[in-house]
């Protein structure tokens, strides 16, 4: 009798489980054979149709832009098929399953077929596809989140995002250091072992992390007109090139471009990390020219930067056009060469170029081309270009560009991926885009940084600034950075005239 009762109870439990799973599981194929065929591709956000993705990217969750009650998504490739069901119109791929799909399809195309349910009817869209690259992307992406504003800011923070999932970790923010502006985080060769960031206003200074040591320095020296600004690490980690900029903003009264940042004056210096001293050369520190955005070649023997003849601002704003220049650099003795080469002449081009970044193989320089100035963030015409150091030719990266700003690009350590900022979605907020570029410098359609919730970007009121790729997470805690930043004023950097 007891046995029968138990059996009955087990049976009841089983029935209940079947009912529950029939609601939750939903991976069973619904009746799709008679689904109405639209005959066109679905409109989804973010747009992942035709993009190339690294095999270690987080799930490309998306939202169907058409209204529907339920979705059935079929992921198919030469390796097999996976089915997913979702209530309403948002697609969230399970992370484990997603990882498996990508690792099985390295170097292959994956198709996504979407069925949407409206009323009792299922409707089928033409499949969309993406290509899974065999080349991985560096695991972490570091960026600053700040609301696009004018002069004031209150909440900002530097965060690192694990690109293989949706985890985001704080590096430093204005909650932990109220009233402090933090910016310009840069890393040596995509490594988290050597990096720096600037702090302004409260507890101002530059935080440098190298050899597992965190220090704060003061970079304003009598020989320069301001503190160190935009930076680039020498591949050896012994030096950091800085531009010193005097920046001001102007605000437009008409039109969609609300502001411009003007570099009223700029020079360049090189910082010796061990000696805590700066040195420079009249070639990169000339009163007759504005030099900015330094960048070392991967072998450390050349320093690239942009330069424009000095002008009176803001009246000369549109006349300020920057050329791409280079000068040799002797790493052993810390000596800047005595001859400047102009690789791209702004005069010839009648445009300006900015933010040069050399590919890890040393063959290309990716840069932003804009009509004038050197801050592309507010120039809608700013586009990404590639300068081939072998053929000495420049070409537009059309696949990456849009009608709005593209700038602040960063190569991955293997040189196959580029992350860059773009205001293309709404003209105001900067988003991070990830694009593939092959060994010949040919770009493929980029994709928006994936977020767990496909609706994330609808309500996110911050811009992603300065995306930088690094191989591993930063090992220093926010508290440690804040402690170093707040406990002391920082070591005063010196100026070394012996170079």
């Amino acid at each position, binding site marked *: 009798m007891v046995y029968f009762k138990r059996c009955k109870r087990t049976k009841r439990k089983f029935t209940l489980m079947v009912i529950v799973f029939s609601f939750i599981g939903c991976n069973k194929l619904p009746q799709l054979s008679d689904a109405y065929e639209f005959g066109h591709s679905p409109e989804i956000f973010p747009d992942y149709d035709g993009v190339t993705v690294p095999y270690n990217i987080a799930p490309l969750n998306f939202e169907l832009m058409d209204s529907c009650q339920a979705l059935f998504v079929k992921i198919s490739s030469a390796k097999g098929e996976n089915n997913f069901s979702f209530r309403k119109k948002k697609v969230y791929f399970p992370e484990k399953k997603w990882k498996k799909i990508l690792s099985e399809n390295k170097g292959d195309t994956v198709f996504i077929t979407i069925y949407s349910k409206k009323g009792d009817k299922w409707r089928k869209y033409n499949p969309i596809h993406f290509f899974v690259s065999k080349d991985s992307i560096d695991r972490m992406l570091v960026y600053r989140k700040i609301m696009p504003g004018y002069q004031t800011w209150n909440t900002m923070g530097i965060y690192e995002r694990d690109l293989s999932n949706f985890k985001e970790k704080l590096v430093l923010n204005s909650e932990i250091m109220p009233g402090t502006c933090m910016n310009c985080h840069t890393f040596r060769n995509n490594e988290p072992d050597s990096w720096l960031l600037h702090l302004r206003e409260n507890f101002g200074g530059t935080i440098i992390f190298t050899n597992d040591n965190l220090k704060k320095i003061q970079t304003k020296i009598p020989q320069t007109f301001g503190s160190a600004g935009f930076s680039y690490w020498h591949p050896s980690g012994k030096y950091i090139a800085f531009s010193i900029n005097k920046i001001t903003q102007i605000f437009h009264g008409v039109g969609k471009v*609300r502001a411009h940042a003007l570099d009223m004056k700029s020079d360049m210096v090189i910082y010796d990390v061990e000696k805590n001293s700066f040195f420079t050369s009249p070639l990169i520190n000339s009163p007759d020219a504005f030099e900015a955005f330094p960048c070392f070649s991967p072998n450390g023997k050349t320093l690239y930067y942009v330069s424009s003849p000095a002008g009176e601002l803001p009246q000369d704003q549109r006349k300020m056009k920057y050329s791409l220049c280079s000068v040799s650099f002797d790493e052993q003795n810390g000596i800047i060469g005595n001859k400047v080469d102009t690789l791209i002449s702004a005069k010839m081009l009648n445009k300006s170029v900015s933010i040069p970044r050399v590919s890890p193989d040393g063959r290309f320089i990716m840069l932003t081309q804009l009509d004038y100035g050197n801050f592309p963030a507010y120039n809608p015409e700013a586009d990404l270009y590639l300068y081939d150091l072998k053929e000495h030719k420049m070409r537009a990266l059309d696949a990456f560009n849009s009608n709005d700003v593209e700038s602040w690009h960063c190569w991955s350590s293997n040189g196959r991926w580029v992350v860059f900022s773009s205001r293309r979605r709404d003209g105001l907020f900067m988003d991070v885009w990830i694009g593939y570029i092959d060994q010949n410098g040919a770009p493929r359609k980029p994709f928006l940084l994936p977020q767990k919730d496909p609706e994330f970007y609808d309500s996110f009121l911050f811009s992603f600034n300065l995306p930088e790729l690094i191989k591993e997470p930063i090992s220093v805690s926010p508290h440690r950075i804040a402690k170093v930043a707040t406990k002391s004023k920082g070591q005063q950097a010196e100026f070394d005239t012996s170079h």
Partner: protein
Amino acid sequence: MKIQQNERFSHFKKYYKQYLLLLFSLLVFGYWQFGFPYMLFFQEPLQLFLCSFDYFIKSVSTAGGLARYLGEFFTQFYVLPLGGPLVLLLWLVALQQLTWLLFQKVSFKDNHFYLLSFLPSLWYCTILSEEFYLLSGLISVVIAMVGVLLYVSIKNFKVRSLAGILLIPLIYFVAGGSYILFTLSIFVYEVVVFRKRDIAIRGIFWLCLLFDFLIAIVLPLFYRMYFDPVPVLQAYITEHFHKISTVFPFPVVLIWLFVPFALIVIFWVGNEEIKKTKKIVLYGVQVLLLFLAGYGGYIFFANPKAEYIKKFDYYVRHENWEKVVSLAKKKLPRNGFAVNYLNLALAKTNQLGDRLFRFEQMGKVGLFLPYEREMLSAMLGNETYYQIGLVNVSQQYVFEATESMPDLRKSTRSLKRLTDVAIINGQYELANKYIQLLKKTPFYKNWAKEAETYLYHEDKINNHPDWGEKRRLRPLQDYFFSVENIDQILLALLQDRPQHKMAYEYLMSYYLLNKDITSFMEYVDLGYNIHYKYLPVAFQEAVLYVLALKSREAVENNNFPIEDATKDRLYRYIAIYTQYPNARELLKKDFSHTFWYYYHYK
């Protein structure tokens, strides 16, 4: 007669608590409804409460997050005419009732401290008169009080000890800093009340209390280390009491200390037999404390002047310009914001040029507020730029206001204005972003849904009473904005829109308030494009003043559209001004509202 009196007295004795509660409720309701309603109307749109599951999870995932969430939820109702006072009444009465219940727990049911139970509520009522103190702080205290009551209701010591260990982290995560009130109160309860009643428990007693305290001390450190890396003090206090998270909310801390202190007093005094004279003293002290809390709190926290300016702001936001002018007629605070709003209302009702000097002016600040790197000047200042058609400047001010919000949060007020500007400028993707957010707010979703129907519909926008008007008023040629060069910007705007009456009157008023007669005379002719029958009175006065400096003939034979009455007034003014050494006093009565008087004496 005596029997009737006795009956009344016994009736009052029986129901005095209800009467006192009613009186308190009426006081609280009246205080907010008639004393400071506009502060509540002002506060409400300075938050962005989203009715979504994500927002709920995000909110409650911080220490004190539930209190904050509830605070924001209830603050939404401030938008309704009686909403704010009723919400505050609800929570203040809840605090009083919980305090009374707690007092009863440590003494007998009908003890003599009912009056004292109003003290935290009364004090908090006045604290909230300062706009930076948040409703979530009050809710946090209420939650902590519920926790204390729950704790003291448990009779079994072991169960209670366990509850204490669980409730401290729970209240910390739910209510934030008020967990200090909870911890101190249960400590007082155990040491003073419980130990006095039952002294048999010794070792385990102290161990439990020590453990409670350890949790209370370590918990915020643990929280900041692993959850939210806030500064140490902020981890303990949490940010839900004051809009500026780094401000130490001392007035609230007084309540955290008052409750445990009151428990000690009530336990020691309340359980003794009290003689009639002592009773009078006891009640007298309570009344005195209530008076001090109420009056002192009012003096410390309430700001009737700010309330009046918020009244201006309320009517400006609702575009009730006539009301703004009538308010200014009654009383115009000597304050840049109020004068700025008044001038805007005068312009919107076509009276700026006529009645500019009818009111006390404050120079150019009264026309255009400079951005002072704080929220108020930017948020309030944007209104003039928006109404005049300088929508990009309005957008800039709203951005600055958003970034200067003391609580570092976004607001519906700024999102609405940013939506306006994005739609006017044809940035529909951007407008849609703001609209999608506003659609998640219960009280602004209808506005957002309506705005959504305008996106990408140029004709519909052009016919919209506000957006269409601003499209017709905004400048066509670009300029670099600086409030210092606002006259140049208005001149450029008038070049683009020669019939822009508001821009013309603002420009002329700007020159007059700056006493820049040369520029005024240089550009006063721009008024011909507006086809005035007569120039606005203040402008007539200024023109006549300049002409009078030349000759009487110049006054008489000028080609400006000027009324004879103005000329007559000028002659009368000149007669007094030139003949009497005490002309200032003599002219004050009849001419203080003229440009001439402003020019000479202000």
